[in-house]
């Protein structure tokens, strides 16, 4: 029983780390621009599809594919920031929610048209046999996911904490007007952080693609789960997004294992309602 529980927790942590990756971009966009981006999950979808095509049709190695899919998705993200999100800044919540939902419909159906509705599996070079970690099992690929996500999260943290751009981003986050007064180019910070966030979501798409498959509507549930993570962790809270991403992954894994797999996706929704009732600012406090 204890071993089974630990096994569920381990599986949950791996999936949860990918949730965290998607949620970091979402929480940054929200904290910086005050925009609830309902199209964020589409970056996750695009990352997955770009990787699938690079591996299956261009015959590239899976390891080359990861940075490639991230960079291509970031380019899409940068274009979107210039074309759409720049105009959405400062608009009421209702406008940004609807416009980003429109974007999400747009991307899902472009994907449907270009790539078709069938789910695809991204092939990986990893052997399917599990590794023993004491009493627990883990596939090499899941171990790889955990490692890459950890690296990406640490890198994101390092950039935000120690580089000039990162410091400027945090300044804009704390106070837009004051940051502009000391000469920080706000628009550039928005562009960079939006692009950065879309890249992290794309990375999650590549990493989870081999497990959960790649299909045009995969971004919808990803968006909702990322929102759950962001709200539970506190809107605009970087560290909160990571911790609650892991928590959601573990809670889902335990829920699927001990309650019912049919209600696996409901776990997060129940959690978010309870958290918002008891602690409206999220578990770790938020900017708002």
């Amino acid at each position, binding site marked *: 029983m204890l071993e089974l529980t630990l096994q569920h927790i381990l599986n949950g942590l791996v999936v949860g780390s990918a949730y965290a990756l998607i949620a970091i971009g979402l929480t940054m966009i*929200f904290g910086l621009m005050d925009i*609830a981006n309902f199209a964020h999950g589409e970056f996750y979808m695009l990352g997955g599809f770009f990787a699938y095509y690079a591996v299956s049709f261009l015959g590239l190695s899976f390891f080359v594919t990861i940075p490639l899919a991230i960079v291509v998705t970031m380019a899409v993200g940068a274009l979107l920031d210039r074309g*759409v999100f720049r*105009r*959405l800044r400062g*608009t009421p*919540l*209702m*406008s940004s*929610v*609807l*416009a980003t*939902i*429109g*974007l*999400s*419909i*747009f*991307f*899902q*159906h*472009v994907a*449907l*048209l270009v790539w078709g509705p069938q789910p695809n599996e991204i092939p990986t070079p990893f052997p399917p046999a599990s590794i023993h970690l004491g009493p627990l099992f883990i596939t090499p690929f899941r171990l790889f996911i955990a490692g890459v996500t950890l690296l990406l999260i640490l890198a994101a943290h390092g950039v935000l904490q120690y580089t000039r751009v990162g410091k400027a981003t945090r300044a804009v986050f704390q106070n837009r007007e004051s940051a502009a007064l000391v000469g920080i180019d706000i628009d550039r910070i928005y562009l960079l952080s939006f692009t950065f966030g879309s890249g992290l979501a794309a990375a999650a798409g590549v990493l989870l693609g081999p497990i959960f498959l790649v299909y045009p509507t995969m971004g*919808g549930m990803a968006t*909702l789960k990322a*929102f*759950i993570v962001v*709200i539970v962790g506190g*809107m605009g809270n970087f560290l909160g997004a990571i911790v609650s991403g892991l928590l959601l992954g573990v809670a889902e894994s335990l829920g699927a294992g001990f309650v*019912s797999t*049919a*209600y696996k*996706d*409901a776990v*997060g*929704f*129940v959690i*978010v*309602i309870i958290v*918002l*009732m008891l602690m*409206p600012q999220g578990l770790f406090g938020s900017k708002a």
Partner: protein
Amino acid sequence: MAVRLLQPVLIGAVALGFPLVVTGGYHLHLAIMALIFTVLVAGLNLLVGYMGLLSLGHAAFFGIGAYVSGLFYKKLGLSFWVGFPAAGVVAALAALVLGYIVLRVRGHRFVIISIAFQEIVRMVDSNWVELTNGYMGIAGIAAPRLLLGPLDIDFFPKRHFYYLALAVAALTVFVCQQLADSHIGRALIGIRESEALAGTVGISPFRYSMIAFTVGAFFGGLAGSLYAHFIGFISPDLFHFSVMIEMLVMLIMGGKGTTWGPVLGAIIFTMLPEYLRVAKDFRMIIFGGILVGAILYMPQGIIMPIARVAERLPRLWRPAERPA
């Protein structure tokens, strides 16, 4: 005075005469769907339009209404005339309970909670197979039939159902308009403009949001019942996020916080996706693009430009009373 009467008489004449002029089944079908959506969207308008609280969970009440009415018919053998009010009441009760818990949060937090509620209801509906038949749905829900003494009207022909839906839609728009014009509507608008200020003059945001939420859910339930007995088949897809998006697009693009905005939105956005069918695979891509463009360039909805034109119309017919 004559001009003021012109508008309602004109709208009434078009609405009543529509099935006499247009007899094609396809167009009548669309018209009935537009009327059902009018009921749904007018109810949502109270919370989203007048009070300014964005909800993405209204499809839950639509689905609850459809299932209450459908199950009343299939499992208990009760007719539409029992199921229809019951659908509204059960949806309103669900809103009352949910609202009591969640109407203390605002903004994006409420958006997510409302989605969460809808998703949970959808999952329960999909998995509680003994009651709801799961993904297979429930088929064979008959159209209503009215037996009142010598009166015997079968609403199965589309033309008959049209008038039933029209009556419900007209009543809904009338009730919502009366509510909006009353102290309740003014309180809701007050909360929308400044919740803190409304509080200081003694308006309880919680109480009024409960009213808007519950009444909106009631009409959502009624719309669900109409849908179930019109289409005859219901499934968990009714709770789908895309249904929610559809009604939100109708509301915002039609013109939120106005009496006729939901009606206009329901008509246009029932027709538009149908006419976009000529674009085949590009249909939803175009639809998404239109949605983004409309929000960026026409945030007030379509009704504002139309209202401006309508204001000028009478002047074409009679000399201006005052020099402009």
